């Protein structure tokens, strides 16, 4: 599935015995199940280092994990808060002014490739265009030489975080806003909202107490299910902004291709997505009493 010859890559730059190469090649002809088990075991084999960086793969992943968690965590948190807020306002009065403007905007954002949006933001706000001066750094997580453990260092990291985070937030809030909007529109027809109105609740309370708690259920699940796509977004956006996270590491590993590193990254991404889906299921139990019993 991947181009390139893994054996050739492994042997590149090393003085390998041809017989050993034949032995290695024979390993690729083993039964699929056996190869799969080897595949699962290999990332944990301390003797197999990254072919490109000649370092243990988990050490590299460990270093790159925190920048990615910082970027994705901030982006998803902001995107869900803003997206849900927009979705509520738009879905409560579908066809209204706010709905028409926000749905138009979110649909455009939703269809944009995140790396393209990232490059546009980079051109406008880092390089400077249309009379806007370059306000943000072009890439990286901090200015070289700045001590990131000091408060000034944190501010420096935040300053570097603004553009990549904004890119991800703009793309993902569109998704969340559209889902929240449509699930709120579905709830609007429900009879218990008529009951809530008949009780004399004002419109804002009908929305807050009755409509939103119900409409949130599918949205929360979707946010967690979407984490799988967030990972792909991280690869391109981190590459555009040279953000030293797992996404950029994936990109660097792909250029090799650095098979041992890629395998470990893919394994970790898969586990992350599965865990996110599990959390989605568990959250449903917390939020929906019908699932609990």
């Amino acid at each position, binding site marked *: 599935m991947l181009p390139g010859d893994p054996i050739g890559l492994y042997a590149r730059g090393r003085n390998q015995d041809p017989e050993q190469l034949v032995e290695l090649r024979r390993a690729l002809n083993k039964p699929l199940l056996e190869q799969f088990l080897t595949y699962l075991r290999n990332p944990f084999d301390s003797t197999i280092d990254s072919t490109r960086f000649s370092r243990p793969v988990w050490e590299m992943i460990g270093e790159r994990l925190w920048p990615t968690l910082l970027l994705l965590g901030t982006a998803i948190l902001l995107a869900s808060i803003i997206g849900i807020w927009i979705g509520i306002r738009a879905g409560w009065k579908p066809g209204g002014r706010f709905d028409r403007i926000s749905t138009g905007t979110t649909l455009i954002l939703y269809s944009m490739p995140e790396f393209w949006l990232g490059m546009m933001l980079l051109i406008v706000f880092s390089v400077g265009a249309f009379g806007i001066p370059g306000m943000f750094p072009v890439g990286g997580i901090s200015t070289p030489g700045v001590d990131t453990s000091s408060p000034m260092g944190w501010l420096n990291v935040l300053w570097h975080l603004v553009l990549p985070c904004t890119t991800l937030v703009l793309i993902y809030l569109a998704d969340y806003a559209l889902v929240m909007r449509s699930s709120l529109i579905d709830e609007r027809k*429900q*009879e*218990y909202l*008529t*009951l*809530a*109105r*008949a*009780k*004399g*609740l*004002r419109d804002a309370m009908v929305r807050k*107490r*009755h409509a939103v*708690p*119900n409409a949130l*259920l599918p949205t929360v699940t979707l946010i967690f299910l979407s984490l799988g796509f967030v990972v792909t977004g991280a690869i391109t956006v981190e590459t555009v902004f040279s953000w030293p996270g797992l996404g950029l590491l994936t990109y660097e590993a792909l250029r090799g291709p650095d098979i041992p590193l890629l395998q470990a990254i893919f394994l970790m991404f898969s586990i992350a997505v599965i865990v996110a889906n599990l959390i989605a299921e568990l959250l449903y139990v917390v*939020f*929906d*009493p*019908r699932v609990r*019993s």
Partner: protein
Amino acid sequence: MTLLQFRDLSVDYASSEGIVPAVRGVTLDIEAGETLGIAGESGCGKTSLASAVLRLLPETAQVRGEIRLDGVDLLRMKWGTLRAVRWSQAAIVFQGALHALNPVQRIGDQIAEPIRLHQTVPEKRINARVGELLTQVGLPASRAKSYPHQLSGGQRQRVMIAMALACKPALIIADEPTTALDVMVQAQVLDLLTGLVRNASAGPDGGMGMILISHDLGVLGTTCDRIAVMYAGQIIESGPALEIFDNPKHPYTRALAAAFPRIGDPAARYAPTGLPGDPPFPGDLPTGCSFHPRCPIAVGSCRDSAPALVHVAPHRTAACFKVDS
């Protein structure tokens, strides 16, 4: 004293096929403490009539005329004032289907909501009040902690009744309160509802009036004081409940009464009678009397002009050219 007055009430729905009239010029009074039954087939406008009282119709509906509650026109009331009237003076018993209750909120909180909103009950008394209401409808007070899906259809309907009684309103509107239930439970719930409304009327707070909507004339005959029969958005007959059921004047009421044979009446059992045809589509009503295409006694003039609702006996009205002729 007159509790609720409908004066020439019309409800039109704007649809893609033009204006569809659902209620056409209904004038009707409900006295304090009285139970009024509204009978009619599906689509005759009885639900639109009931929803118009608290202005709960969708935005596509245009309402004209007057609805006076204790003499004040609800249709011209400011929204803020109307919200204060909702539930505290007129409450609704919704059909007990699962969708009428919020699925993610405990029923105790849902019953307590209007109490918190309209009454000044101290917070620590609210749980006790919810417990009282639940006991009143025959549910253990501990049920307050349940979610709607944990209750049966009958229990949910009891919750709806407890909720309607929460603020001791002067008027209760029950729109087909038992349709979603099976027959045994239907009778129980209906007895409970009418019993509680009657008890409240006997109490010191003055009468509790009720509008009970059903397609079952037999049920209305035994539970209501008066009945109004609707057809194609209009009242076509009204009068004391038992008289309407035993001696219907309008041919439509007669057909409706015959559609529910009485137990132990072999004649009705062996010759069940029904009404041929379907009720007219509100957007495409027949000329003249809207019932004439299905009427067994229609004459030529029925096609050209509509009969007015006139007094045909003491306390009784009917809209038919052939009554008493």
